[in-house]
């Protein structure tokens, strides 16, 4: 009988036979899963009847690809990784040495060389290689740039980790300026720079920051107070509709309505908080989910006020404290005041700084609150509700303040969202949004502001980036639309990241209050409390 010392040695021992078996299993499972859904497609014919279209070729390709992939992974990938691990243990190197091996100086020089060559040839790539290969070349260039950036980050990791918040805030503050300047250099004119920056500032910058703010707001409820809230989007909706309705009907300015929307959302947070005070864990989750759905359904059905599914349009723009307006027809329109060319980009850049300011406000308030009695009470509540009560903390007010504070930031984000879109409809406030925000909070590592910001950047930025992958069209043919696969890939990424790092990107739960020395409560040792 063979004595196995460690699973690694077992994997190295006899891989090929195992690989063939596993590949066959994988193929059978893929066949079973996909035979009806990919092998056949339901389609409407001319007389509007459902017919079946057969796609066995696609099914076969998928099956073979899975089998080959599984075979290669089990036969070569697993033994390779296991050998690495054994070597690391034998030589006493830490697992980090894998990263050191990956980020070597010659690789960096090679990546820089590839980027340099491809950038120099950028204009003549199509002529040299033809459109299809040029697409691949651009993809390689992007990968090389990413690798080079990652190398730089890895090389300066100690410095970056030590000054993370400062560097991050500086980078965010400079982001639109850098984008505009780079694009201005690229196109050769300032106007071109502003025009081109629209997509980068709006789709990437503002979009990500809205989610960062929402996730930081939800973090107060879920990450600090440990109350599982699946209906956070309700407060977002309350804020958005508060600004949309009061702004369009009464012409009130954004700067008055922003605190009003926050207060209204906080009020609804308390309204939700009262009935659910006695509930714990998953009962709380389902009631908050139900609350989110109720708000959405009321918005859809209360047509006299909310205009139902059609939504509200023509929501007024934000002005720079009434001094500078972003409406072209106004006398104090920005380009008239400052004497520059007209462009829609100014408004987007202004909105970018506005949401950045709101985000920083959220972070600041969260950090300060954590040091105050109420924040400590939240963290105590998260760790152990019974101990918390027996020490004389009023759990009712603690829970209510958590709901109200979290909801308030949701309301701020909502009114910003309404101002940015100029249009709100119930479509934007579906459960999926709540799920995405919660996923960002958990993936980032609950309670960690930096981790959550990174998670938002990866998940939202990643899905936005999928809109840009036009070269895939050249690979898979013109019918291929990467946008369709956006949410599918988002879901897959959620599962993979969670399985890979169950504690999130930044997975420690450092207590804010401590005696003499700060001792991190290691995530893997604490069991999640109820409630």
């Amino acid at each position, binding site marked *: 009988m063979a004595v196995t010392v460690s699973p690694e040695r077992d994997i190295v021992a006899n891989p090929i036979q195992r690989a063939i078996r596993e590949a066959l299993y994988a193929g059978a499972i893929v066949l079973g899963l996909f035979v009806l859904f990919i092998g056949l497609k339901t389609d409407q014919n001319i007389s509007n009847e459902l017919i079946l279209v057969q796609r066995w070729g696609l099914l076969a390709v998928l099956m073979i690809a899975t089998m080959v992939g599984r075979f290669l992974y089990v036969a070569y990938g697993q033994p390779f990784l296991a050998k690495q691990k054994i070597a690391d243990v034998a030589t006493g190197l830490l697992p980090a040495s894998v990263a050191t091996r990956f980020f070597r100086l010659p690789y960096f020089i090679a990546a820089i060389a590839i980027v340099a060559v491809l950038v120099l040839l950028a204009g003549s790539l199509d002529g040299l290689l033809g459109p299809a290969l040029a697409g691949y070349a651009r993809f390689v260039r992007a990968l090389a740039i990413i690798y080079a950036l990652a190398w730089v980050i890895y090389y300066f990791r100690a410095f970056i980790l030590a000054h993370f918040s400062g560097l991050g805030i500086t980078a965010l503050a400079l982001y639109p300026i850098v984008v505009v300047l780079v694009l201005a250099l690229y196109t050769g004119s300032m106007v071109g720079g502003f025009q081109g920056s629209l997509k980068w500032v709006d789709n990437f910058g503002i979009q990500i920051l809205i989610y960062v703010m929402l996730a930081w707001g939800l973090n107060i409820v879920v990450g600090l107070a440990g109350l599982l809230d699946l209906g956070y989007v309700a407060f977002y909706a309350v804020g958005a509709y508060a600004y949309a309705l009061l702004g369009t009907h009464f012409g009130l300015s954004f700067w008055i309505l922003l605190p009003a929307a926050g207060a209204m959302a906080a009020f609804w947070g308390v309204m939700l908080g009262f009935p659910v005070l006695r509930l714990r864990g998953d009962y709380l989750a389902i009631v908050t989910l*139900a609350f989110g759905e109720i708000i959405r359904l009321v918005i859809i059905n209360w047509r006299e006020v909310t205009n139902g599914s059609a939504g509200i349009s023509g929501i007024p723009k934000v002005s720079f404290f009434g001094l500078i307006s972003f409406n072209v027809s106004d006398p104090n329109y920005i380009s008239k005041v400052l004497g520059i060319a007209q462009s829609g980009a100014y408004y987007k850049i202004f909105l970018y700084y506005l949401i950045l300011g709101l985000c920083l406000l959220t972070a600041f308030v969260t950090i300060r609150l954590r040091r105050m009695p109420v924040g400590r009470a939240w963290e105590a509540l998260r760790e152990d509700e019974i101990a918390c009560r027996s020490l004389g903390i009023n759990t009712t007010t603690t829970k209510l303040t958590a709901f109200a504070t979290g909801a308030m930031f949701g309301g701020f984000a909502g009114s910003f969202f309404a101002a940015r879109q100029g249009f709100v409809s119930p479509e934007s406030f579906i459960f999926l949004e709540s799920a995405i925000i919660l996923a960002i909070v958990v993936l980032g590592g609950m309670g960690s502001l930096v981790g959550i910001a990174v998670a938002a950047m990866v998940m939202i930025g990643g899905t936005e980036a999928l809109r840009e992958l036009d070269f895939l069209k050249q690979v898979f043919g013109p019918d291929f639309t990467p946008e369709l696969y956006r949410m599918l890939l988002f879901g897959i990424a959620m599962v993979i990241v969670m399985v890979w790092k169950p504690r999130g990107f930044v997975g420690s739960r450092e207590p804010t209050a401590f005696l003499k020395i700060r001792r991190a409560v290691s995530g893997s040792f604490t069991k999640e409390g109820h409630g």
Partner: protein
Amino acid sequence: MQYFVQQLINGLTLGSIYGLIAIGYTMVYGIIGMINFAHGDIFMVGAFAALIVFLILGAMFYSVPIVIALLIMMIVAMLLTSLYNWTIEKVAYRPLRGSFRLAPLITAIGMSIVLSNFVQVTQGPRNKPVPPMVSKVYTIDGISVSLKQIIIVLVTIVLLALFWYLVNKTSLGRAQRACEQDQKMAALLGVDVDRTISITFIMGAALAAVAGTLFLMYYGVVVFSDGFTPGVKAFTAAVLGGIGSLPGAVLGGLMIGFIESMWSAYFSIDYKDVAAFSILAIVLIFLPSGILGRPEVEKV
């Protein structure tokens, strides 16, 4: 009175479907303490599988007796969704067992997104209407009962009886109940916990597939996003009845069904979901662990 009885019958039909889905939620919750958010989408996958099998049967044989067709649809849908749920459990939930409570919840939400978008990508985003399969309607004393409704209620009763037998009288059911009470102890006494959990997922998926087939037969249309609303309602039903309790799931399903049909009949159809969710909140305020749920013992 006639109107009331009519609504009672409609509610019973709707409640049966919710009850079948709710059992899947409540069983998984009972055994590993997680909300399986992807269960609603498993239900949708079941309905789609039934639809595709129906089309295959229609294309290959011109006249299959509808009872046999329904039976084949159900069996294929059950096999397929079982495979789906088994794979999902293996890929997304098992690696996270013993991790903190929110981790499997997030993968479950991720899997729910994956399943509905997978069906959207592979089968297209449009509604899929099928010709009516069963159209006979009996009228007794001014109350009309369609054959569809009779089939739904009968199938539900038969399945529940079978299921009750499985859980209460077989060694498999005993293993499940043991795992529900104490996984470590069950493992020490020789129960294969992993296998039992896998079988629980398979059983839940099979019931959801039946519910999906019945849903397709009843409404005659299915779309990729159909998993969400019935899924949330069924989960509401499971919580209302007391999550973890099997009779509670059926009771909760029936209650949600009745509330919905009564509200649409006497008040406004637009707010029927609002009514169902509000009643959930009200019930939970007074009975914080559902109607038949055991109150959780607070331990220090």
